[in-house]
């Protein structure tokens, strides 16, 4: 799975933004990575919600995030989801973001992923994978290669 734009038309699953997530997807389209922060408890969360999952206040604002994180856990998938046929095997990972929350994403390597070259705890940084004119996916790459 390289960082190149997948062949059009894209056949994979595409997110359909909702009012509480639209700003996130609008930002990735501009290659910006943002997180919702609660001004009451001071914590970030993911995925974006209309209430803070930590303190349940509704005092949320979007802030630019570092795009840095580490691999919390991962799999190397050999049985592709629709649209991923030419990317197997590919890494599905849960990234622990520097700001605290975790998110599912892909870890994109220059080589074929193996249990040796993908490691729990590995430092990663965000990258942006345009899928369609409307959707750009936040994926991650090893921090060392950035």
């Amino acid at each position: 799975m390289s960082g190149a734009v997948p062949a059009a038309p894209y056949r994979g699953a595409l997110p359909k933004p909702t009012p509480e997530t639209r700003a996130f997807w609008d930002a990735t389209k501009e290659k910006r990575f943002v997180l919702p922060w609660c001004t009451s408890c001071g914590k970030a969360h993911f995925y974006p919600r209309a209430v803070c999952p930590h303190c349940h206040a509704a005092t949320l604002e979007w802030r630019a995030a570092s795009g840095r994180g580490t691999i919390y856990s991962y799999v190397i998938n050999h049985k592709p989801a629709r649209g991923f046929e030419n990317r197997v095997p590919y890494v599905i990972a849960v990234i622990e973001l520097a700001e605290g929350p975790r998110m599912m994403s892909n870890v994109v390597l220059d080589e074929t992923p193996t249990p040796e070259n993908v490691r729990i705890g590995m430092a990663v940084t965000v990258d942006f994978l345009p899928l369609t004119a409307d959707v750009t996916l936040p994926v991650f790459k090893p921090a060392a290669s950035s």
Partner: protein
Amino acid sequence: MSGLRRRAAIVGAAETDRLGALPDYSRLALHAEAARKAVADAGLTLRDVDGLFCTVAGPNELSEYLNLTPRYVDGTGVGGCSYMLFVRHAVAAIAAGYCDVALIVHGESGKSWIDMEMAGTAASPAGQFEAPFGAAGAPTTYALPVLRHFHEFGTTKRQMSHVPAATREWAVLNPRAMMQAAGRITPEDVEASRLVCYPFNLLDCCLVADGGGALVIVSAERARDLPGKPVYVMGSGEATAHRQIAMMRDFTTSDASRISGQQAFREAGVAPADIDHLMLYDAFSFTPMMFLEDLGFVGRGESGPFVADVSRDAQGRTIYPTGPGGRLPMNTNGGGLSYCHTGRYGMFALIEAVEQLRGRAGARQVPDLELSLVHGPGRQFAAAGTVILSNR
């Protein structure tokens, strides 16, 4: 806190005549056959049913299909453990007087996919934050916590490979098990099977099948007047913690399983050491390992060494700790791995516990059995349900 201990009993249990690829059955037809057989097993008729519990069919469509008008309805849908929750809810509804004869029904055209629909939309949280990353169903999402467990506790793939091998030993003893004819397998065979989603190979993954099953529950008092041997509900528990696997707070322990198990043990007034027989929903090889830890059958991080602690019998045959002849018989029908798995398998785990407690399990019968614990997840460790059953 004895709660509703021994207040209600399972008096009927049945599965569809066949399990496997059943292109001649719709989703609702599977429900209907299982329901009809379970009430007959209880010595009752469908006309006696006044509480209906189902999730793959909505309660409204199933009441219509069977031409029933139940006065108590539960359509809880939290995944494969929904049936454990239904047992709990049925016990409570019966104790409250809200219904007298509870029918819990499962039917799922998981293989032939006749009148089935995919859950969720592209606008749901999972549709936005899981699906776009190529999370291709259960093998990917159930696999995600596994390497974290390996990382934190030193658990190995070889240890995990013992689970499908042990479970297959039971399936070999069960003429209804889909994998009976396939015969025994070793941990090495598991690792030699096709790679699906590392760290899972094909034999780490449950079967995909069509089938159905149903249970009938009445008050303990009413159970005495019915022909079958009652199986008493001693305790139960439930919880839900999240939906998406990435939102699981700690990938090495299921909050829902711990909370659910604690409630069930407390209500039943028993401890893990008292349990003779376990049905721990095995969607994948690793799944029951997590439950062994979260329910307290082994310590945190100890499930790997536990499942791999094999011995030899006099003939030199491998005895797995959870297999036939082992000290903790688990998934004795052959499990989701080797018996049958329709999608929401919890019903089959419950039925096997009932069969064992009634002494109807044939060659795989666990001797001197009194207490069985059934536990399962809803989706990927997101929800959980626990039922402790007794034949005394």
